[in-house]
């Protein structure tokens, strides 16, 4: 059961039951009161009417008595002679009566009846028909005649008009003044009779409304209706049975009214006068209707109270508890669905409020960490640029968009040239700063509004991303031709070409850019990126610092590279490699003192492949590690073989790349090789280039120290081509320097190179390092080096690289002076070194 239902099912009975009980009790009480009140009102009305009528009767009696006592009336009554009476007295008496009637118009008829009932005088205000002038036999006259009292009164029917009237009469007892006053007895002379209209009673009946259907009824003592609220019923008779009942009730006490109920009506009956009864009638239905109406009101009030109370409770619960809880739970559900921005109600106080606060904080935290995660997931930490994932998503959208549009899209792949060298030489901190600066410039290069489109669904903008390392990608979705893309590429090249100052260093950096166009250069994101990468390599091969559009040819070259890589792996397995050895000669004696092992790949189909062709690939792919290990083992084995063959102790120099230093456990390999072969460690020389030492990073020196500790000799290869040769020569744990062939070859050509060679030789001498000159091809070079104190050298002048089998023979031969002969025995010379590199 829900919380609200539970609370309501508890509270509503608590509210409703008392209200119901209260309503019922109130209804019963009010019903009784209402009925009693109605009856009381009816009784009060009748009482008022009764009082009023009695007052009227009293007033009428007073009037008639005053009138009867007037001298004129007395004289009139005493005048027995009709002529005298009528002629002399009547006009005056009529004046008197009229004057009275004018002030009391209700007394519309005043009559003077003689003892026999004949009407002697009649004064009416308005002309009225006169039913008879001889009243002798009328019931009224008989009643008056038989009445024994001062003032007779009765309510009855005026025969002249047929209307109800009040008759007031008084007998005129007058003593004859002509007789002796002591003896004379008052004698009945006649009757003074007033007829009074019952206007007030008629008004009462007409206006004295009893409820809606009720009536006020006045009747005579026989049940004939004088006045009825329903005026049409005046003059009719009340049902005799009912009237008998009513009259009995009313007669019970003349000064109070009594109620009577029959089947249909409630009556209040009152005897006002012996000849006047008043009844208030109210249909039982109406009495009950009032009660029913009351009941309805009470029911409505009760119901209303219940509804209001329930609604209040409901609302209160809703507002204070349920709604808050539901809102919180809705908010929680929304959180669950991942929508963390749903507002959490904050208005509540107390526990709910605290709960809401906790929810809010939780949501905020979730939101914040979610945003962070999303940011991290889609952005590069260093530069703040979108990362590979973000870029992939974006590119997919952009492609889908252009596909629908049938538009073009350009994708650029950027790679910093020689970034590795910067990192190696200046440290990662500088490298990182360099990347940040490059990212800034790239951003600036791209038009402000479109270099980045943070909204994935909006693929119209450009997007710059860092894929990793020194690789950046740029997507230009709104290009209309390759020309647009080349413009952008040029801008980028110019921007990056500006010197970059980081700390105290001023760096000159270039970037190589590969550009692919959708849909020409690929349909999928993957293909476009791959092809752009390829185009970038092409740019590198073109000498770096430029951009290249992708072409099918690049694709072919790439395929070739792939094939090469595959072949390389196979070649390692199949031992298609061999080592040639180039003698290193003591320039003083002319005899061989060592050899440099040079790797050769005898491809079954392509023939011998030079190291320049596959070594970079092997380094790139990591194949250099097993290959290098093979070289070490092969060279060590060869050296042992030579020693066993009784050769003088010549050393073997092995080229080691940076990858080997960092990735393989070079010292371990060497230790195991030494242990296996038992050769003198001094006879194993490792040749490293400055570049590879830098590339190997900070660990390189430690590795070198360990190697030297084992007993190996280290030589710095290609010396002079690096950027800080002198520092390396001094600080590295090395035994020898090898002067790069480019310097040697320029001897006698370039003075500066000669100076460099001289400087290197001097430096080697002062640092206690042996110096080996490479690429000696002429006698002149030899002589120059000899004169400058160079002890060792190698080159075609002495010997080309030769197979291992030929080395013992050469070892026994003096290689200076008769090199022509030796050389002719050997295969044509091949360059063993990659072309000279310079940092651009």
């Amino acid at each position, binding site marked *: 059961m829900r919380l609200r239902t539970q609370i309501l099912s508890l509270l509503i009975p608590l509210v409703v039951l008392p209200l119901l009980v209260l309503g019922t009790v109130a209804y019963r009480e009010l019903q009784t009161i209402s009925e009693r009140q109605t009856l009381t009102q009816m009784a009060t009305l009748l009482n008022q009417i009764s009082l009023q009528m009695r007052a009227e009767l009293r007033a009428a009696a007073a009037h008639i008595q005053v009138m009867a006592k007037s001298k004129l009336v007395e004289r009139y009554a005493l005048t027995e002679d009709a002529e005298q009476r009528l*002629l*002399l007295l009547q*006009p005056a008496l*009529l004046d008197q009566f009229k*004057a009275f009637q004018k002030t009391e118009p209700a007394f519309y008829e005043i009559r003077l009846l003689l003892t026999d009932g004949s009407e002697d*005088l009649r004064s009416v205000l308005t002309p009225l028909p006169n039913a008879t002038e001889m009243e002798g036999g009328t019931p009224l006259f008989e009643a008056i005649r038989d009445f024994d009292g001062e003032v007779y009164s009765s309510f009855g029917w005026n025969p002249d008009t047929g209307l109800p009237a009040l008759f007031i009469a008084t007998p005129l007892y007058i003593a004859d003044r002509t007789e002796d006053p002591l003896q004379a007895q008052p004698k009945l002379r006649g009757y003074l009779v007033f007829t009074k209209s019952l206007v007030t009673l008629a008004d009462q009946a007409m206006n004295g409304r009893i409820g809606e259907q009720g009536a006020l009824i006045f009747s005579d003592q026989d049940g004939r209706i004088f006045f009825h609220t329903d005026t049409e019923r005046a003059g009719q008779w009340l049902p005799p049975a009912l009237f008998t009942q009513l009259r009995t009730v009313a007669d019970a006490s003349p000064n109070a009214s009594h109620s009577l109920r029959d089947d249909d009506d409630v009556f209040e009956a009152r005897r006002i006068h012996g000849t006047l009864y008043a009844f208030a009638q109210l249909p039982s239905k109406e009495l009950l209707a009032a009660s029913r109406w009351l009941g309805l009101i009470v029911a409505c009030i009760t119901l209303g109270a219940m509804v209001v109370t329930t609604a209040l409770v409901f609302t209160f619960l809703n507002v204070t508890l349920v709604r808050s809880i539901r809102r919180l739970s809705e908010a929680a559900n929304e959180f669950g669905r991942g929508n963390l921005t749903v507002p959490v109600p904050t208005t509540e106080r107390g526990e709910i409020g605290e709960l809401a606060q906790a929810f809010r904080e939780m949501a905020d935290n979730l939101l914040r960490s979610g945003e962070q995660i999303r940011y991290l997931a889609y952005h590069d930490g260093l530069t703040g640029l979108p990362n590979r994932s973000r870029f992939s998503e974006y590119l997919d959208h952009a492609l889908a968009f252009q596909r629908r549009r049938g538009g073009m899209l350009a994708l650029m792949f950027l790679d910093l040239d020689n970034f590795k060298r910067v990192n190696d030489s200046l440290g990662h901190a500088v490298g990182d700063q360099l990347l940040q600066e490059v990212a800034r410039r790239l951003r600036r290069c791209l038009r402000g509004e479109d270099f980045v489109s943070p909204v994935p669904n909006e693929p119209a903008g450009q997007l710059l991303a860092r894929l990793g390392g020194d690789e950046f990608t740029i997507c230009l979705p709104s290009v209309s031709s390759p020309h647009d893309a080349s413009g952008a590429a040029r801008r980028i090249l110019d921007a990056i070409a500006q010197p970059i100052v980081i700390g105290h260093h001023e760096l000159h950096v270039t970037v190589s850019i590969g550009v692919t166009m959708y849909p020409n250069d690929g349909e999928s994101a993957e293909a476009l990126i791959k092809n752009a990468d390829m185009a970038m390599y092409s740019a590198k091969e073109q000498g770096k610092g430029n951009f290249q559009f992708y072409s099918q040819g690049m694709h072919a070259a790439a395929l070739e590279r792939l094939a090469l890589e595959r072949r390389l792996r196979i070649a390692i397995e199949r031992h298609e490699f061999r080592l040639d050895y180039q003698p290193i000669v003591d320039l003083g004696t002319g005899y061989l003192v060592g050899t440099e092992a040079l790797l050769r790949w005898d491809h079954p189909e392509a023939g011998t492949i030079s190291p320049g062709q596959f070594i970079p690939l092997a380094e790139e792919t990591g194949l250099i590690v097993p290959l290098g290990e093979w070289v070490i083992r092969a060279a060590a084995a060869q050296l042992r073989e030579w020693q066993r063959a009784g050769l003088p102790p010549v050393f073997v120099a092995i080229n080691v790349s940076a990858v080997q230093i960092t990735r393989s456990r070079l010292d371990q390999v060497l230790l195991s090789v030494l242990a296996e072969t038992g050769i003198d460690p001094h006879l194993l020389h490792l040749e490293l280039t400055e570049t590879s030492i830098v590339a190997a990073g900070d660990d390189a020196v430690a590795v070198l120290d360990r190697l030297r500790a084992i007993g190996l000799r280290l030589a710095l290869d290609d010396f002079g081509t690096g950027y800080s040769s002198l520092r390396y020569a001094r600080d590295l744990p090395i035994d020898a320097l090898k002067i790069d062939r480019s310097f040697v070859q320029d001897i006698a050509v370039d003075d500066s190179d000669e100076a460099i060679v001289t400087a290197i030789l001097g430096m080697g001498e002062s640092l206690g390092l042996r110096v080996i000159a490479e690429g000696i091809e002429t006698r002149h070079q030899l002589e120059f080096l000899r004169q400058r104190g160079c002890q060792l050298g190698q080159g075609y002048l002495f010997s080309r690289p030769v197979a291992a089998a030929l080395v013992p023979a050469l070892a026994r031969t003096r290689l200076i002076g008769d090199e022509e002969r030796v050389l002719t025995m050997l295969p044509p010379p091949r360059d063993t070194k990659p072309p000279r590199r310079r940092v651009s």
Partner: protein
Amino acid sequence: MGHALDGTRWRFFARYVGRCAAACGGPPRSCGHRKLRWRSLALRAFAVLLCALLAAPATADDAPNELSLLIWTEYLDPEVIAEFEAAHNVRIKRTYFESDDARDRIVQEVEGHGFDLALVNDVMVGPYAKRGWLAPIDKNAIPNLSHIGARWLSAYPSVETFGVPYFWGTLGIAYRRDLVKGPVSSWLDLFRPDESLRGRIIMIYDSRDTIGMALRALGHSVNSTDPEHLAEAGRLLEEQKPFVRSYSYVSLSETSGLVTGEFWMSMIYNGDAYLLKNYNENIEFIVPKEGTNLWTDYFVVFKTSPRKELAFKFLNFLSEPAISARLAQYLHYATPNLSAQKFLPPDFLTDPLIYPPPEVVARSETYAALPAQTTKARNAIFARLTH
């Protein structure tokens, strides 16, 4: 004619002087007083009652030489009165009434007490006598009765015993010739008047005259006892009522409504019309073609009067032919005193307004005693009319 005019002018002057004198000391004759009296019957009755109660004993005890007279206004020549007063060292105290009915009310209030003499119209002498209010006339004390025409002496019941004829006359219509459109010749011109007369008519406060002339107008006898006739007459009077300004006798002064033009038509006795005509020549008097009532006024002496002898002397004085002639000329009424005629000028005796021509007399009636039922009916009609 010129002489007659001169005589008239002189009488006017004399009457004017006399009236001024009376206004100073005697009973009020000024217009204001009279109006007040006319207006309120009750007030008048009350005043008379006071008079009777307070003045009567005074006349009886303290002022033995005062003779109390109940009479119409303008019905005595002040000079004649003065002469009698001077001759007998007596003061004639006059109490006025405006109509016979009004007089009846006064007398019945006091049951004949407080007055020595009254002027009573012909048919009422009988009831007065019957009521016991009157004293028989001592014919020996009034030798001048011999001058009076025999027919007047016994024309009505009881008059022979109780009455001394004074004047006789007719009842007619006075109207403003200049204001009323068309000729006036019928009672119906009065009872069913032209619309222009609404509120311009004045009627006598007298049931006998109003009902009688209404009966006459309808072609019935003034003494009709037929209830139908009476009812008809009653209806006619009710119809007329909206045109009637007042049921009270028209003022006879110079400022009378008829003179000023406030009223255009009035029921009036012939001599009074003559009087008003002197004030305004546009006032015309006619006896309607249907005929009229011929009336005679009688002096009566009250039974309770303590000065009957003086009263008889006064009546004897008035019945002197010369005095009678003076009065007739002053009042413009016909005198029953045959001997007085030789004192009257011929134009007076032939004046048709004063002496109706025989054809008028032929059409006319005198009032007669009526049965009780008729009286009752008339009372009812008149009461309704005047309330």
